[in-house]
């Protein structure tokens, strides 16, 4: 049987138009709170349109009308059944959302730290066993010379080698490190394997560089060079790793019987808060690395640089550990 389509459309069109107008209004202002009477009317229109779609399914075959009604019903469904608050960027709550998300997933952060430390230990071990591994572990031209030679050159430099390129150097550092942090998150989709490899590799380089300078008797230079920016940059990358492990955890769902899609939905906002926070930290770290870290004694005393780095680390720890505590 096929329904009398013109009569059906004529009878129902007013309701569809009313629902369409109500939805357009709600889509334009998702935060608008409806009075009870309007909610009831919206629900009535949704149910009526659903029933029309059902009748069309059973008795008619007009594909374009069906598509129109499906579109209307699906839009109404997304408004009526959505339980999450509408997304709106509020800077104040975003600043608190970041440490809160960090605190909620401390286990994932500890795992990121542990993997990086394991990488550091491997870097130390590989260099300790055979110093020639330096060329493989640290494939960067600037790190190939002996630490004492580099320190001598840096301390005796009469010219600012970053003169006229400091801002562009900072921009490159910011974008590169942000990309690494996003990659650490994104690699979580490989069930965490990619994140694990990335953090471990980062740790290996860090461990090898630290070993090279400490064994070469340049521990103070190393601290003065790395701490001003590293005290923010390294935690930011670890935060990317934390996000990657949270994503992997939601994908795997150990001991969690809720469907995967629900688990992923539950962590999505936290992932975005953590990565966005890490991105902001990396803007600071890039600026400090270009404008402060590359200047050594006698331009900036090591003690001052180390103290600056430690203060940054303390401030970051306080912010992440205490801000927005629930």
């Amino acid at each position, binding site marked *: 049987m096929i329904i009398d389509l013109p009569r059906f459309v004529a009878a129902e*069109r007013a309701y569809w138009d009313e629902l369409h107008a109500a939805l357009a209004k709600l889509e334009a202002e998702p935060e608008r709170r409806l009075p009870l009477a309007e909610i009831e009317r919206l629900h009535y229109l949704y149910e009526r349109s659903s029933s029309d779609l059902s009748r069309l399914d059973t008795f008619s075959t007009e594909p374009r009308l069906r598509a129109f009604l499906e579109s209307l019903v699906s839009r109404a469904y997304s408004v009526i059944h959505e339980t999450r608050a509408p997304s709106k960027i509020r800077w104040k709550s975003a600043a608190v959302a970041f440490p809160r998300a960090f605190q909620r997933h401390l286990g994932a952060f500890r795992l990121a730290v542990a993997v990086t430390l394991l990488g550091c230990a491997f870097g130390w071990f590989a260099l300790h066993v055979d110093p020639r591994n330096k060329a493989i572990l640290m494939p960067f031209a600037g790190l190939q010379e002996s630490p004492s030679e580099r320190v001598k050159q840096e301390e005796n430099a009469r010219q600012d080698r970053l003169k006229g390129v400091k*801002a562009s150097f900072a921009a490159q550092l910011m974008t590169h490190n942000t990309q690494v942090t996003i990659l650490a998150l994104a690699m979580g*989709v490989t069930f965490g394997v990619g994140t694990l490899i990335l953090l471990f590799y980062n740790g290996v380089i860090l461990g090898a560089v630290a070993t090279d300078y400490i064994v070469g008797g340049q521990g103070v230079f190393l601290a003065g060079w790395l701490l001003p920016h590293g005290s923010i940059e390294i935690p930011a990358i670890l935060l990317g790793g934390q996000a990657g492990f949270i994503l992997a955890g939601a994908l795997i769902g150990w001991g969690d019987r809720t469907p995967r899609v629900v688990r992923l939905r539950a962590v999505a906002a936290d992932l975005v808060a953590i990565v966005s926070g890490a991105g902001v930290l990396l803007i600071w770290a890039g600026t400090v690395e270009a404008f402060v870290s590359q200047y050594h004694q006698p331009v900036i005393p090591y003690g001052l640089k180390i103290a600056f780095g430690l203060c940054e680390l303390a401030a970051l720890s306080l912010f992440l550990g205490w801000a927005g505590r629930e």
Partner: protein
Amino acid sequence: MSNRRATSLTIETPEGMEFSFDLASPVTRSLAWMVDVAAIGVLTKAAGKACELLGHMSQDWATAISVILYFAVSIGYGIVLEWRWHGQTLGKRVMGLRVVDAQGLRLQLSQVVLRNLLRLVDMLPLVYLVGGVASFCSRNCQRLGDLAAGTIVARERSAHAVDLEQMAPAKYNSLLAWPHLAARLRSLATPESVSIAVRAVSRRDGYEPLARIELFQELAAYFQSLVEFPEAAREGLTDEQYVRSVLRVVYGGRRG
């Protein structure tokens, strides 16, 4: 929620209703992506030109700003547009696609950000190989970013009500002069055959002239085989006009 067929995702509401999204194929998505790549190219080029002007004041700052703008545009393009345009980028708009929540709910900012950040993995090792393989293997044509964000890319549906007048004009219909035969046709026409006729009418301008003539010839012959109207009813009607008259009869035209 269940899969009716590989090309659509069906959502079952708590009220027992079902509606479906037509999933975009990887090919259509690739075309949309190409449009987006071109748009990103234009935007970054424009930003680069603007920075060149700034270079007269400070080359260092001009380079810094262009590096940051390039990064911001390439990462932020998808996020900003999909958020502001409710799941669409320029490419998706052109190709009639839209990102929607895989459960039919409202698309959240966190979902948009997540699916765009995970592009970094989907693009590996080059030209979306990982994402392409993932969407070919995935039940709902989802790349990894979509899987993690709980989104799908669907074909845009018409938000405008159907125009019955264009499909089957309500002018004089000779078939309705024989109401008993019209009633018989209404009861015998199967939904499938009517659906084919509706599609043929709505897409008639897209067919080659010869193919269109053949198609309507076959449809007219089929409907005539169901109910044979007297010669007077068919007089002066082309096959296409006959099929349109049949549709008007079937969809309830009770006027003569």
